[in-house]
Each structure stands twice: as C-alpha cells, then as structure tokens.
C-alpha cells in the first residue's frame, strides 16, 4: 500500500542527568526572555516579560482555566471520535479487503488537503459552536490514526498470519489476536502525535469563530490589544498540550509493555 506510516518517533528519551539539563535549559531560556524584555523595555505588543505573563495568568486564572476546559473538551471529544473513526476504517479495510481500493485512495486524497483549509467549510456547515471543533479535530486525528493503524495492521508478519491460519483461525481471530496487538505501537505513536494536533486544531478553529475557548480568548485579547493575555493563553495552551501528550504517552507505556 502507498500510505506509508508518517509517524515520527517520539523524541529521544531523557535520562536523569538529561532531565536536569532540560530543566536548566528552560530556566535559562525564561531568564533570557525576561532579561531581553525588561532590559530593552520592549512594549508588551512586541514581547512582554515572562513575569508579567505569569502574573496575568494568575490574575485571569478563572477566565483562562474555563477557556482551557472548553478547548480541552473540544480537543478530547474530537480526538476520541477521530481515533474511533480512524481505527474503524482500518478495521473495515482489513476485514473486507475489497474496500481498500476505494477507501484508501479516498482517505489519502482528503488527507492531502491541509486540515486548516477545511475550517471555513466546517464552520459554515456546523456553526461556530463546539460541533465544528469536534469535526475539525476528528478530521485531523482520524487520518493520522487511520494511516498509522493500517500501517500497523499491514506490518504484521505474513508468516505469523499463516501460522494462525494453520491453526484454523479466521480473519476476525487473526485481527484480534495478531494484527491489533502488532499494530498497537504504531497506533500509539499516531495517537500520541495526534494529541498536540488536536489541541492546536481546536484553537485554530476557535480563532475563526467560537463561543469560548483558548483560541477565542486569544482572538479577543488581540482585538483588545492585550498581548500579555495573548501570551498567557499561549502558555496555558502549551501546558494543556503537554499534559495531554504526557497522559497518552503514559497510557501507551502501560499498555505496550513488551517493547
């Protein structure tokens, strides 16, 4: 099949010392930022100081946390829907091979359009409420999950399939006992990469029209020329992404223990 797994492996793991260095790196970066912003008296619309941003996050915490909850809801619901669609499609193609000739090219074609390009259409179709965000996130997630799951299903050793067949196993049994577990690592990689995308897509769509959420907060803050708040929302978004990513990564390590 032509759909190569496009899943980028996770960043190299960090050891104990590496962790310390990583924290040090972030601290240095923040200090440099603070120094530059304060030292050059940069106006907030160019680059606000980190301390100001943190202070603003604290001051506006209830707005930001509500918005983050809004965005996370959109991202997680869309993510789950997208993941289910992606896995289902891959299962259908595997169980009913003739569908591959139709579904795979169609999926690849739809996937060749950058997701954000769909947003105008989706907003027109589904309005600016949560449903349009669900659809956008699901769209972005489902293709990644679909392609990585299918690649996982296809990666299974032909000889293993033959072995189970020789035991009298049918397609479903082979899918359940062999293809699914084989595909898990690739699926998980797809799921992990999708977490960050889910949140970014939710925010991007919110900025084009929404009733709330971090993207909406950013949009409003830009209009009110409140760049400290823009940065505050970016910080919160980034933290939410990291948390979502970490959570899925943790679940992955628990489930795929044999790697």
């Amino acid at each position, binding site marked *: 099949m032509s759909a*190569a797994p*496009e899943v*980028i*492996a996770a*960043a*190299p793991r*960090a050891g104990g*010392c*590496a962790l310390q*260095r*990583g*924290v*040090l*790196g*972030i601290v*240095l*970066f923040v200090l440099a930022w603070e120094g530059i912003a304060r030292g050059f008296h940069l106006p907030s*619309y*160019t680059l606000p100081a980190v301390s100001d941003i943190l202070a603003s996050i604290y001051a506006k915490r209830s707005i930001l946390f509500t918005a983050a909850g809004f965005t996370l809801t959109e991202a997680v619901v869309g993510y789950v829907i997208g993941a289910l669609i992606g896995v289902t499609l891959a299962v259908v193609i595997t169980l009913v091979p003739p569908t591959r000739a*139709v579904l795979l*090219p*169609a999926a690849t*074609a739809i996937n*060749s*359009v*950058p*997701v*954000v*390009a*769909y*947003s*105008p*259409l989706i*907003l*027109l*179709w589904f309005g600016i409420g949560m449903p349009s965000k669900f659809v956008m996130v699901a769209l972005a997630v489902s293709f990644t999950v679909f392609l990585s799951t299918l690649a996982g299903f296809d990666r299974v050793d032909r000889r293993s399939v033959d072995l189970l067949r020789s035991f009298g196993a049918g397609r479903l049994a082979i899918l359940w006992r062999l293809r699914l577990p084989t595909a898990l690592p690739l699926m998980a990689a797809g799921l992990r990469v999708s977490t*960050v995308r889910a*949140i*970014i897509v939710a*925010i*991007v769509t919110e*900025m*084009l029209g929404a009733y709330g959420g*971090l*993207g909406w907060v*950013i949009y409003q803050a*830009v209009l009110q020329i409140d760049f400290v708040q*823009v940065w505050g*929302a*970016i910080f919160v*978004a*980034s933290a939410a*992404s*990291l948390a979502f*990513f970490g959570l899925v990564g943790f679940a992955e390590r628990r489930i795929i223990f044999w790697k």
Partner: protein
Amino acid sequence: MSASPLTHPAVTPGGSAALRLLGPLGRLARGLAILLAVFAAWEALVVLFGIRPYYLPRPTVILAALVQTPAPYIQGFLRTLSETLIGFASGALFGIGMGLLFFRARALRELVFPLFIVSQTIPVIAFGALVVLWFGNTLFAKAAIAFYLTFFPVTVNTLLGLESVDPRQEALLRSFGASPLQLMTRLQFPTALPQIFVALRLASSLALVGAIVGEWFGDTVGLGVLLLQGMYTENVVSIWATLLVSALLGTGFYAAVAGAERVLVFWGAEQ
C-alpha cells in the same frame, strides 16, 4: 562473467513484469478513474437529494468556477507554493543542521531539546499577528510559519537516524582509521537519510498548512486568502474550488518529496 543480478529473479513472471511496466501510468489511470467516479457520485447525490448549494455545491459548478476565473487560483497556487517551498527548504536545512549539531553536542541537545518540544505545542495561529509584526507583510512572514512547523520533525528524525547507526558498522570504519568527519559523511549521514525523508514527507504537508495559515494574516494573494474570502462572503463554491487546488498542491508537493526520496534513498529504509 556477464551474469544478470541475482535478485532480479532469473525469470521474471511475465504477467507481473508487464504490470510493473504499466505501473505508474496504470496507477495514474486508476486514480483518475476513481476521481471521476467520486465526482459523478457527488454530482448525482446533490442533484437527487436536492442538497442546498451553500451546503454542498455540485462539482460541475465548482469546476466551472475554476475555469471561468482561473487567475486567482493560479496566482494563489503559485504564491502559496513559493511560501511553502521557502519555508520547507529552510525548515529542512535548519532541522537537519540542528539534528547534526544535537548529535555531536549531547549537552547542548539536552539543554535545548525540551524547549523545541514545548515550542511545538504552541498553536501557530496565535503567533500570526506577532509574525506579521516581526517580519512585516512579506512572503517571508508566511514562510516563517511554514518553517516553524517544518523544522522540528526533521530535527527529531535526523537525530534518531544518526543514532540508529549500527555500532558495528562504525567500529568497522574506525578500524580502517576513519576520522569523525569521514564517519559522518560516509556512514552516519547516509544511514540517517531514510529517517530524514520520513520527516520530510510529513513536513511537506505541514509546510503547506503553515503557508495557508500564514496567509490569514493580511495578504492579497494565496490559497489561504481565497479560503477566508470564501468563508466570509459565504461563497461555498469558491471554498470548494480552493480546496481542490490545495489538494492538488498538497498531493503534488508530497509526491515530489516522495519522488526525491525514491531517487536518493534507492536502497530502501531497511537493510
């Protein structure tokens, strides 16, 4: 001994050889046939169920729009293409460079890598306004966003590729007295190339996303502009036409990168 190479089986099965010869053309024909079928089904669906045109216009209407006013779509295509190319190329070079640097300087990598990761969780669009402030209303502002989305996967995969070098292979070259530079050019970089290309293929789509999003920040030409315009004037036909052009651009660019990969990484990822 003028033998034929052994992997080309001495006798190639006739049927499959013919198929392979037909390969690219045949696949193209099949792809076009499927496309036509999809369009026909779509047209029929809209007509039969009387779907309102501002929900889903008929494909013939979309194609007609493309044919009647091709100029904005062609200009948009070219403009977005150049932004994508510049962002992609700079992101790829920077990504590979950082990968090499991180590979050689472990301490630096541990210091900077977490920042790279965090940077990727920032929604680009939040940056749009700032990028216009920093880079002005130029093509480079868009390319900068494409760059931002591109470099990270390339860095990660370059690093992973370099680290996947077989230590025995390295030992072999060292036993021949190879210097670090010789190791890099003759072993490490070529080994990493397949991995790098996986990232480049991904980056080709991301660069396009970056260019389109970048165009939402005040521009006159580009596919992103056409999308916005279509959205705010509720011109669904124009949105669809732009989607089709984006698909063309996306597929074409991806195919180009994949083609380059096939030529440069002719030996395949597995060995």
